[in-house]
């Protein structure tokens, strides 16, 4: 059975239909890459999956672990195991990184009917995860993302992913804006989580990331539809040829 099963998904934003019939199956442990031109609906797809208000599903179904995702609120989806690493992570003034992580972690434990974690134990756990991403303690003491550089914000998203250990992580252009070393660190973070229980949907513009994180499937999203799917060689082909064949007319 698929972990995530998207069937004929149509969605509108601000009255415009952006997703026009997406079909996508992600099995347990699989890594799927989604590529596609600017404005084709990649972030829209990620928001629809994460349950952002204003992104309205007009047709189709999304099943996650067999459950209908569309009826769940954003926080419930997160606690079910859907994680979105934002393309543009927001600054959260006044909310300390460590507190934020603990609130998120405990929210999930409560959702699952489990006991909240001991604060000291959690601190140790987060520190070890932060270390592998080369994030300082200082960054955890600061307000979430406030004053962080673009690359630091992206790393912070991956730290949150590493702490929350979601069943499905959607990474929306997490590689954009990362320097070469950070790209390596982030990829290591992703690969560490990679296992038969953790699937990923990686949105990217660059084939380079896929050298570090080997995808099982690559999809091309254009004009609100998946136009083509293939193996990792498809990314190489796109790198060489661009998206010309997926122009409006061709579609």
């Amino acid at each position, binding site marked *: 059975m698929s972990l995530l099963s998207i069937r004929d998904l149509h969605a509108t934003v601000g009255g415009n239909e952006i997703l026009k019939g997406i079909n996508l199956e992600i099995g347990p442990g699989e890594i799927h890459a989604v590529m596609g031109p600017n404005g084709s609906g990649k972030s829209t797809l990620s928001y629809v999956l994460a349950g952002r208000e204003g992104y309205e599903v007009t047709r189709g179904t999304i099943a996650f672990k067999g459950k209908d995702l569309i009826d769940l609120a954003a*926080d419930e989806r997160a606690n079910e195991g859907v994680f979105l690493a*934002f393309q543009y992570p*927001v600054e959260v003034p006044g*909310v300390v990184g460590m507190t934020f992580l603990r*609130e*998120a972690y405990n929210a999930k434990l409560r959702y699952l009917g489990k006991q909240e974690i001991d604060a000291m134990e959690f601190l140790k756990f987060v520190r070890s995860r932060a270390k592998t991403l080369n994030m300082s303690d200082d960054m955890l003491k600061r307000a979430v993302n406030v004053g962080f550089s673009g690359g630091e914000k992206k790393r912070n998203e991956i730290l949150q992913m590493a702490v929350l250990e979601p069943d499905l992580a959607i990474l929306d252009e997490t590689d954009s804006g990362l320097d070469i070393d950070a790209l390596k660190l982030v990829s290591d973070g992703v690969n560490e989580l990679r296992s038969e229980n953790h699937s990923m949907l990686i949105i990217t513009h660059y084939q380079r990331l896929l050298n570090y994180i080997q995808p099982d499937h690559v999809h091309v999203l254009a004009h609100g539809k998946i136009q083509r799917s293939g193996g990792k060689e498809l990314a190489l082909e796109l790198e060489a040829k661009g998206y010309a064949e997926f122009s409006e007319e061709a579609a």
Partner: protein
Amino acid sequence: MALQPVAKLPFEGLIADARSHKLGKWHSKLSERALEQYAEIGWPGPKTESWKYTSLNKIASGTFSLAGEYSAIVPEDMIMPLTCPRVVLVNGVLNKELSNLEHLIGNLSITSLVDIEDHQKTFFDDLFKSEESKGDLPLTHLNTAILSDAVMLEITEGSKCELPLHIISIGSGNGITFAPRLIVNVGIGAKVDFIESHVGCSDSAYFSNSVTQLYLGDNSEVGHYKLQNDSRESSHISLTRAVIDDGASYDNFTMSVGAKLSRNEVRAHLKGSGVECCINGAYLGAADQHIDNTTFIEHQAEGSSSREVFKGVLDDTARGVFQGKILVHPEAQKTDGYQMNRAMLLSDKAEIDSKPELEIYADDVRCSHGATVGELEDELIFYLCARGIDRESARRMLIGAYISDAIDEVKNIDIRSSIQIVAENWLKQNLYEK
């Protein structure tokens, strides 16, 4: 029964009663003078500039009587949550049973007007006179005119008070008015932190017209923290006036959450040089609350600094007012002044009026001010929800963080945490999406 003359001024009828009330002959003279001054200035109306955004019509047209009862149960869940010695006033009068003054150390003394003989009151006389020249404060004169008691704290020269002192003013009774009066005299080089909690019994609808006057001697250090949590049907109008001498530091913070109509007016007169003065505050308003913070900082001498940070959150049809004036005299060179008022509106019908005013007559000064109004961004809420935090908790966290920013200004760490708790409780009780 004799016919009462028609009152020309609000509360004029009560003033005569007040004279025979508690304080005897000494007060009669003081009260007559105060009435004259009050009558001369008149009740603040819609044309009074400093009351432009806050209307006192409802108070003026209400029927009030003087309190007759001076005992109550301390509403423990409404006062600032902190364990320290207490001075409790009920309807403006010191209640010794409720106060626990036995823990006070020798260099801090508390005197109540009710307790002393008329001939001992001359010192108070001078203190009241010093307030009389204040032409634009009719309600201060009204306070003097209807006084039932006044409490004076004196901290002797050089003494450092370890524990803060908690002054609790309780309003109890429907349709009553009272005039808490607090005088704080801090000796040279002395150090003290004190708290004022203004609270009410259950749903009492009363009018508290409160005045606190402070004198800070050279190099003294004073933390003055106030919680306005009067009952939701009441009115709270207060004036805090601090006169500050050379090298002294004054840290003032007001947390306003209670009353239907409130005004927290703080006037700091920086008489000395090298003074450090902070007038900060936070306000949280819901339903039809009206919360006014009005400040006036007067730099009279060289090289002093003042800082003001106010932050507010307003929901439903709540209305906030911030008026902040900084006056820098020609002698006050090298003045450093900063003022910021930020408000977050949680509903379309909530409102904030902000009026900063700088009047600078010296040329070598650094003064800045700013004001912002914002709302809680959906994008932020979604970010927290996408991490598993439910919407209500997300809102609470974000608004809490917003208001903490102002609370962090409080220099006394224990009191800062207490104010934090007050804010968190407010958020738990008042914040739900309609």
